[in-house]
């Protein structure tokens, strides 16, 4: 076996009876990362996540861009969850500027955040399905994600890179026919989740591969500091929307599903239940937006500054035009921390301003960066076959972790 090359893997003898397998960093099978696994037979003795292959210096790049420009940049960390990842950054800027968005803008942000959350979970299911060899789930999840991507496109004008929130509000109002379309999508997805349950989550083949695999106990989850659906599957009641409600999450009626089993199946179920809750939030947000038609989506002091043409465009198309002052905007010196709940967990921004036109420091902690440690401490003891099941169930996303 020594020096032998297998397709996509290099196998090399490290000790008697112990083999080292490199999984990745080619994209299919591991994402943009490498897991170095040491095997005794086919039981994993040691797993070493080797991350950093898609590090793009997001924090440093943010420091050389004017305040509005990091928004399209930071989206590129998790392109499938673009609104959730930018809202906390914008919240941090708003804290520094002492500005708050009007309720309608907050509801529009929440609406897009939940659309993104559903799309992000469906993306996770697709990858999970293909890891387990269940290609039906892959095609279905990606097909149904397209419904929510389409909704986001109608709302913002771009499929994935929405660049939707700006300090003080959002860039566009909802089109007239959007509520009806969103309600149809919600009803469709509810029916579809029942079919997902039958073909995937309750399918005995899938259940056998997930039940009791990758169990993270409550104590272990707290000790490792993992976040998001993974920690809620281990019985810890932690969600930023619950702990520190941002935007209008404290006005909405929804549940935070918590499971106690802590295995891969529980993590899958948390996501299914979260999709249901997100669909309910989409409905509530759309109802609220319909009841409060014509309310402003930017603060009054910003609206008063707009020239005549800008107001005309805003009244006619619902598009908020920026002022040339936005390009060289200065933000008062100070420090702000803002956090939010993404599809994969908690995201934290620390933004520091020295009063200039660019941030002095932008620190980002993404959920996947905190979840990567699961590979090191949870995977050993399982068989190699269980590794894709654990990987898929924690919904790890390398570009987000490496940032």
């Amino acid at each position, binding site marked *: 076996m020594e020096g032998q090359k297998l397709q996509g893997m290099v196998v090399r003898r490290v000790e008697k009876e112990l083999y080292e397998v490199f999984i990745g960093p080619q994209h299919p099978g591991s994402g943009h990362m490498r897991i170095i696994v040491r095997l005794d037979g086919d039981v994993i003795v040691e797993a070493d996540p080797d991350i950093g292959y898609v590090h793009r210096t997001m924090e440093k790049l943010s420091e050389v861009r004017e305040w509005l420009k990091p928004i399209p940049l930071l989206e590129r960390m998790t392109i499938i969850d673009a609104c959730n990842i930018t809202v906390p950054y914008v919240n941090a800027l708003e804290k520094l500027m002492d500005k708050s968005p009007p309720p309608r803008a907050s509801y529009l942000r929440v609406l897009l955040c939940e659309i993104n959350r559903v799309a992000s979970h469906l993306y996770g299911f697709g990858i999970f399905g293909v890891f387990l060899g269940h290609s039906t789930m892959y095609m279905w999840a990606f097909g149904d994600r397209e419904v929510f991507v389409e909704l986001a496109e109608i709302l913002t004008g771009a499929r994935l890179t929405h660049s939707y929130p700006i300090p003080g509000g959002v860039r566009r109002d909802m089109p007239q026919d959007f509520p009806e379309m969103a309600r149809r999508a919600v009803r469709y997805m509810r029916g579809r989740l029942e079919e997902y349950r039958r073909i995937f989550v*309750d399918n005995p*083949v899938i*259940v056998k591969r997930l039940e009791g695999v990758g169990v993270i106990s409550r104590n272990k989850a707290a000790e490792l500091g993992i976040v998001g659906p993974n920690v809620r599957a281990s019985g810890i009641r932690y969600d930023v929307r619950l702990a520190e409600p941002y935007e209008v999450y404290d006005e909405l009626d929804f549940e935070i599903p*918590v499971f106690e*089993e802590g295995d891969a199946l529980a993590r899958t179920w948390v996501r299914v239940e979260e999709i249901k809750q997100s669909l309910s939030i989409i409905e509530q947000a759309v109802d609220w937006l319909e009841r409060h038609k014509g309310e402003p989506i930017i603060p009054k002091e910003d609206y008063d500054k707009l020239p005549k043409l800008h107001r005309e465009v805003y009244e006619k198309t619902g598009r908020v035009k*920026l002022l040339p002052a*936005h390009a060289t905007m200065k933000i008062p010196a100070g420090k702000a921390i803002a956090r939010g709940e993404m599809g994969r967990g908690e995201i934290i921004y620390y933004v520091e301003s020295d009063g200039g036109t660019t941030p002095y420091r932008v620190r980002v902690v993404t959920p996947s960066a905190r979840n990567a440690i699961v590979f090191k401490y949870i995977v050993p003891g399982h068989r190699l076959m269980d590794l894709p099941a654990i990987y898929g169930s924690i919904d790890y996303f390398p570009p987000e972790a490496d940032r």
Partner: protein
Amino acid sequence: MPARVSLKSLKRRGGLFEGIKSNIQALAVGVKYFIDPQRSTLLYPKEYIEHRPGYRGFIVFIKDKCISCAACARICPSAAMKMVRVTEVDPKHPDKPRQKQYPVINYQRCIFCGYCVDICPTEALYHTPFQDVVYESLADMFLTLEAFQLEPGRPSVSEGSPVVYEVDEERGLIKRRR
């Protein structure tokens, strides 16, 4: 009303009967879609998507409205837009040529965030609702001032028929011919 925690637990799986039932359920769903598949594939280039008016596609410049303020070049997050200095005839004084700055765009860098369109104080830039444009070489993606004022040619219009995607309650995303 703040969020509530709802503690749930996985249902206990029992016995052979449950296994057989779940297997049959899974197969039944599979058979249902085998007989009546749900497809929304776009047969490009025989069909092309007609996006809604708000879509952020290729950007076109209207020279007559431009006041040379350079706000678009300053807000561009990827430095795709640059100002060029041109000498042109002043309509008020035909004998005296004047120097003016106009934006040009490099589509190798553009990320279609639409900041330039939103910041333009005179609405001299607008989005076309499509993105399927082909350039023969990378150099062609660096538009000149003349090319920037024309809507880019869209080969799919001459070759295919337009379709729109709609959200349907029963079948998700459906394709409808226009």
